[in-house]
């Protein structure tokens, strides 16, 4: 008996009228995988400097995230403490081992900081983004002990810190950085694109926030 795998490949090849070993087809596929050509890139995101940061902010807010800016990473803890206080949230905060977060002066605040992935009972978490995309106000998160994926989804309030220099025009520029960091053809275990807080429209097509993921998404852009 042939295996399911062999059968499926044989059926595909019969339907396409090919053998699978044609040099030209193999070259076309190899070439595409290696070159990874860009397609149509919307002009909207193709701005730089202040304009790009402003676009990111506008688009992220349109996705119902809130955005604030700080001049330096050292101001992040105070900014988070203020955000939590303004929303009457407990002064507790879960985070991973990201060195960029670790060096921030948490002791200058009254925040009760704990480390590690979420087990489902944390109200607030902070993660550091790998990058962001101005085109749609999207954050790009990468899994690992630095920023455990569970922090992106389990807490009620998720705060994401992103460096202004990491805000790209388009998704393709973020992929270039991922390739540079992980090697061409390799990926981190998980890349999460996040555009706004969790929502559902499943009941009478009414938009409701906080379906299973965070009810609030707060973004802090570090300008330095």
């Amino acid at each position, binding site marked *: 008996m042939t295996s399911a795998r062999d059968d499926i490949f044989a059926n*595909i090849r019969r339907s396409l009228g090919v053998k*699978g070993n044609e040099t030209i087809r193999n070259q076309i596929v190899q070439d595409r995988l290696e070159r990874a050509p860009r397609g149509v890139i919307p002009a909207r995101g193709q701005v730089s400097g202040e304009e790009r940061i402003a676009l990111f902010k506008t688009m992220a807010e349109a996705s119902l995230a809130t955005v604030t800016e700080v001049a330096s990473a050292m101001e992040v803890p105070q900014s988070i403490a203020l955000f939590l206080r303004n929303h009457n949230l407990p002064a507790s905060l879960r985070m*991973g081992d990201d060195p960029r977060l670790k060096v921030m002066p948490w002791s200058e605040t009254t925040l009760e900081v704990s480390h590690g992935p979420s087990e489902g009972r944390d109200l607030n978490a902070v993660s550091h983004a790998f990058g962001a995309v101005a085109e749609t106000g999207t954050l790009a998160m990468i899994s690992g002990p630095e920023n455990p994926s569970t922090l992106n989804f389990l807490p009620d309030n998720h705060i994401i810190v992103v460096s202004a220099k990491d805000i790209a025009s388009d998704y393709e520029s973020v992929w270039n950085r991922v390739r540079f960091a992980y090697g061409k*053809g390799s990926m981190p*275990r998980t890349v999460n694109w996040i555009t706004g807080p969790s929502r559902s429209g499943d009941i009478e097509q009414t938009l409701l926030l906080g379906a299973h*993921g965070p009810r609030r998404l707060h973004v802090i852009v570090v300008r330095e």
Partner: protein
Amino acid sequence: MTVHTTSPQFKQNAARALHDPQLQKALNNVKQGFIDKRRAAADKLPEFEALRDSARDIKNHTLEHLDLYLEAYEEKVKASGGHVHFARNADEAREIILKICRDAGAKTVTKGKSMISEEIGINHHLEANGIRPVETDLGEYIIQLRNEMPSHIIAPAVHLNASQVEQDFRRVHTHLDAKRDLSEPVQLLSEARAVLRERFLAADVGITGANFLVAETGTSIIVTNEGNGDLTQILPRTHIVLASIEKLVPTLEDVSQLLRVLARSATGQEMSVYTTFSTGPRRSGDADGPENYHVVLIDNGRSAMLGTSFEEMLRCIRCGACMNHCPVYHAVGGHAYGWVYPGPMGAVLTPSLIGVDKAGHLPNASTFCGRCESVCPVRIPLPKLMRHWREREFERHLTPASVRSGLGLWGFVAKRPALYRLATRAAMATLGFAGRQRGRFSWLPLAKGWTKYRDFPAPQGETFQARWKRERNGRAA
């Protein structure tokens, strides 16, 4: 297991749907919401039409080289520590999934929304074998409580109203205070969130679908707004991805093109809230994520569609725009279609997957208005493909005798212009004369199917051809 379908009873299903006031109320939400939101999103992006061309070309290119991209994908998944399984059909897919669940010692399985999982009927199979599947997308959770099929591919519970959901929650969530207030949709959402949070944390295996698979990196992608798909896949020890073979795309650049048209076409969002790219199991040092990562690649009729006129249907990215814009779907909803895929895409795909003998009514349930094709992000010529099914149905003598003889008679007359002009002139003159008083007919011989529901307007006594000739001559003079 044979496929459970009520597609052969489409006409009865549709009649029942038209007389269901709850359903008709719910369907109003489709007509109002989706169309305007898609339009606004498309208008906001000047490159939208060019992106649709790009999306179509990427899918065509991939399908033409599907064997090679599948091989490349498989190799990458293995290199990242994942497992790839191939299933020729639904039976094989179910057995593979059951075995993985058993090997993981699973008691409960959480599920992200996945149409292929509906197609292979995995929930019933797991239940029959003592494993509890829990749907976690809010809409899917609701219909699972009601033991129903999704009525829409991206809004599975779109056929329901909030009061119906409230009744179901009161019936099932008996551990909660019977006097609690559930009058607002947000209270229903909060309750589902709390109930399902416990399920997420307790599950042994998580099953998700895949919107796309990337050959370049061996990555599977899910797109959700709720975050349920992510909690399904990062919390349990084992993550199973179910995907039909046509989900493949070559590169991360290619999938980025497709993602730019997916959410805009589906819900009118610029981008869905969560787009998740998963590659293999937990890495060393990871503090969370699944320890085992399995992909089940399912053919179930796809490879036979390649190289035929229905190959174009394999471009479908399941956005739901075709049904959101379909006047037939607006009138009867998704359940009338009788199987997993409703609306125009279902009318084309269902006969391919379960046979035109069972699903022949579906491609006939179309006015051929063309709205579906005009909004399809990958430009599938849905009306043309429905017409192909009608032709095949006719060729295979599946059409009822009365319809065949009627079409035969019409064909005989239409091929003889002199006879056609004579016959239509006589018919129009007779009808015009008979209807000159009231201007309409509430009854006509051989037209009960029409006059049962609405009056037939009386013609003015002249044929279109005659009028065309007269007016053109008049203009020339």
